[in-house]
């Protein structure tokens, strides 16, 4: 496999014109620059003025908390997500059909909504713990507003990234490798650890990278849970010391860390392209679980779904049911959220596709364009103001409203490029060089072959990317907060405003509305991946 891959990539690089960059490469360059502009903004701001007066000791503590939290979330999501995917793909147990797609649903719930729910539910002065102390005589030993509490909340919010990636990987794995492992005397469990998991490592890396980047960039949840991460330092430098430069400086090491993470993730895939186009499509040998094992599998999946979605929804409902929702305002905000999400998904996917196609041979460029995803929301807001200032100064005479909308959509593309790039990259890797060559031999240009061959083959991946970005924009906060035009609230903005004002009950309806809007696309996405094994009956 390794041999053919290397030969293939050598072949890929040959038809390039030695002189001028092609149209595709220009497009990729433009997309990459657009995405990198806010980061350049952060660096410029960081160099622009004196730093903040936050003591180094505090900064180190914030950095340590960020690193520790990322590590905890990385380990937890990797474990929870991989195990769930392995159970669902390789085993038969009660509820498997339902769980196989439902386990991705927590992706629809914004992390900040989970934080509201868990912090309130397990608050020391909440009904639950008051009742426990009074009736049972003991207290819950686990505080939500701690680093482990935050790790708990974020892990259940983000494990679906790993689950989706791993399920797709297990579904497209070669049965031959598993059978070889079993023939060589491995038990089913050993086959998992020694064959399936190593083969799926790129998928695991991609899923965990997304979860960890989401953790680093998180804006609402960690702040609400009073865990002081680097974001705290950024906000403190900015708001107390009034120093945007100081805030941007705190973010620089974080950018470097994110870049290293992305680079490592990329590196771990090198030479490990277990080309799925060559596997033999036979049904995966599914093992039937019985008795206690079957019950444990069902319970495990049910627990994941409950913690990630059902319990928070129940809490939101219980707290909202007594309040009349302001339907007109919610409907307007929902329209805004939906239209921004649709437009943003479209633009981001097109840019990401251009980047993936044109920069296929320069992975560093696409890594840089992905950094926005791992940048703390507050820092991204500072960085976005730099390109925005340019636009504001040259947009004399244009409608301020449409300039604002344009900026927002651009901001989403810059922030969420990574979420679109990952699936598109994966999708494009299914296109074998010989397929592109066939297109070129029939007289297509490089761009023409991309349009006629690569994009249609990767159509599913494009759709996946668009839907992930769509759902992410529904939940997006920092860019929306700072760049939106007048009289233009989204559901996430309304929920956040209530939470800031310590009116959690009222944050319920807008949060539920986000989940309701996001559930459909997430469910559809999950179904699509379930049906993605070629040759498998749909």
């Amino acid at each position, binding site marked *: 496999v390794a041999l053919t891959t290397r030969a293939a990539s050598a072949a890929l690089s040959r038809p390039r014109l030695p002189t001028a960059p092609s149209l595709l490469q220009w497009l990729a360059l433009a997309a990459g620059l657009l995405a990198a502009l806010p980061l350049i903004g952060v660096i410029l701001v960081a160099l622009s003025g004196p730093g903040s*007066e*936050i*003591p180094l000791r*505090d900064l180190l503590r914030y950095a340590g908390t960020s690193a520790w939290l990322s590590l905890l979330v990385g380990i937890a999501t990797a474990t929870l997500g991989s195990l769930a995917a392995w159970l669902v793909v390789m085993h038969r147990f009660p509820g498997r059909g339902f769980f196989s797609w439902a386990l991705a649903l927590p992706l629809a719930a914004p992390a900040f909504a989970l934080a509201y729910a868990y912090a309130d539910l397990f*608050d*020391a*002065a*909440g*009904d639950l713990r*008051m009742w426990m102390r009074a009736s049972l005589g003991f207290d819950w030993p686990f505080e939500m*507003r701690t680093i482990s509490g935050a790790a708990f909340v974020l892990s259940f919010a983000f494990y679906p990234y790993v689950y989706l990636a791993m399920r797709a990987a297990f579904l497209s794995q070669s049965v031959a490798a598993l059978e070889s492992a079993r023939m060589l005397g491995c038990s089913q469990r050993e086959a998992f650890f020694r064959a399936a998991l190593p083969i799926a490592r790129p998928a695991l890396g991609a899923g965990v990278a997304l979860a960890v980047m989401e953790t680093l960039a998180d804006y609402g949840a960690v702040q609400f*849970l*009073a865990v*002081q991460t680097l974001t705290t330092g950024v*906000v*403190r430098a*900015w*708001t*107390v*010391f*009034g120093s*945007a430069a100081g805030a941007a400086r705190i973010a620089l090491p974080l950018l470097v860390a994110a870049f290293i993470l992305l680079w490592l993730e990329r590196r771990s895939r090198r030479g490990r392209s277990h080309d799925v186009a060559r596997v033999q499509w036979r049904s995966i040998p599914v093992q039937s679980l019985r008795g206690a094992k079957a019950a444990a599998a069902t319970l495990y999946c049910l627990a994941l779904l409950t913690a990630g979605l059902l319990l928070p929804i129940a809490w939101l409902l219980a707290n909202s049911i007594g309040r009349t929702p302001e339907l007109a305002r919610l409907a*307007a905000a929902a*329209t*805004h959220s939906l*239209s921004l999400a*649709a*437009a943003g*998904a*479209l633009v981001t*996917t097109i840019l990401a596709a251009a980047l993936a196609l044109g920069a296929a041979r320069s992975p560093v460029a696409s890594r840089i364009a992905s950094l926005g995803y791992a940048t703390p929301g507050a820092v991204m*807001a*500072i960085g976005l*103001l730099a390109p*925005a*200032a340019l636009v*504001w*100064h040259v947009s004399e005479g244009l409608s*301020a*409203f*449409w300039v604002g*909308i344009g900026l927002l959509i651009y901001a989403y593309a810059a922030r969420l490029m990574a979420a679109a790039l990952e699936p598109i990259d994966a999708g494009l890797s299914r296109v074998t060089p010989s397929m592109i060559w066939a297109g070129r031999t029939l007289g297509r240009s490089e761009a023409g072959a991309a349009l006629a061959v690569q994009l*249609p083959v990767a*159509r599913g991946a*494009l*759709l996946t990317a668009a839907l992930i970005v769509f759902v992410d924009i529904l939940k997006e906060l920092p860019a929306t*907060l*700072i*760049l*939106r*035009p*007048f*009289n*233009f*609230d989204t559901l996430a*903005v309304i929920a956040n*405003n209530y939470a800031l*004002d*310590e009116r959690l009950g*009222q944050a319920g309806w807008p949060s539920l509305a986000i989940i309701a809007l996001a559930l459909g696309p997430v469910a559809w996405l999950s179904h699509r991946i379930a049906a993605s094994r070629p040759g498998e009956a749909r």
Partner: protein
Amino acid sequence: MTWFKVLALVAAVTLGACGEADRQAERGPGGGEVNLYTARHYDSDLALYEQFTRETGIAINRIEGRADELIARMRSEGARSPADLFVAADVGALWRAQQAGLFQPVESLALAQLPESLREPAGHWHGFTRRARVVAYNPERVRPEEVDSYEKLASPRFRNRLCVRSSDSVYNLSLVGALIEAWGEQRAEQWARGIVANMARPPEGGDRDQIRATAAGICDVAITNSYYFIRMASGDDSSDRQLANRLRLAFPSLEGRGSHVNISGGGIAANAPNRANAIRLLEFFASREAQKHFARHNNEYPASPDVPPPPPVDEYAGFEAHPMPVAAFAARQPQAQAIMSRAGWR
């Protein structure tokens, strides 16, 4: 690629639709418009905006956000900023906006009615509501005279009995800023150390969470803004009411001259395109009627001492407010943060 067409169509149609709606909202019934950047995002303020538009015909366009994000946005927008009026719920933010050169001074008879201590001397910004930083305590374990001064909160008698939120809170920063102004830096730092030693748990949550923790017996005393307690005690959440009713509100004094008060206030943007309308809106916020509205619905105190506070605030209005000009401690927030950080106040 059909999916893309569908997505594009949806985006185009809905964006078009909401653009239409937006343009309608921007048009007032003939009196022009005013662009409001506000860090206040209380639902009850919306009714007030509507009333202003009804009375004057001036439509209000608003962007709500955190104060410092709005400041950063105004700075980026520069001379072309559409902002007319900037409103914040803490005097520190107003001071930072002034430092950034975002305000222009205004003179107005109506605004001059506001107490002098709540205005910037040159007229860059004006406070139109007051909020006191006070103490909620458990009357079964604490006597009122034990919490009648800020100093006593730091005394060893409250070791491991006090709940307070983190030093990131602008309300804590303003309080410590006022203590620095009154006592000097050294004594204020000692006080902060005393508070840290008295904490029943590391700071977590907002003011409401401190009140709830006190009601739950985790601590005996909580430092909080007045309106959170009043809202819990008289709001529509029955479990909050129950919790608040176990507690009392005390108004600690600074040097025997009254409790620390902060403001909500606003200033006219330096490049306001609708300057006259902006002044009218700020005057409207400072009107007796609006002050009463803020008190009734958001449980803040009216800025003017001659405006009688309506229920439910009236029950808690019999306290003395420290006469220190709010501008004096606004500038001390960075200093306060440094002190609290040294004292180990997370």
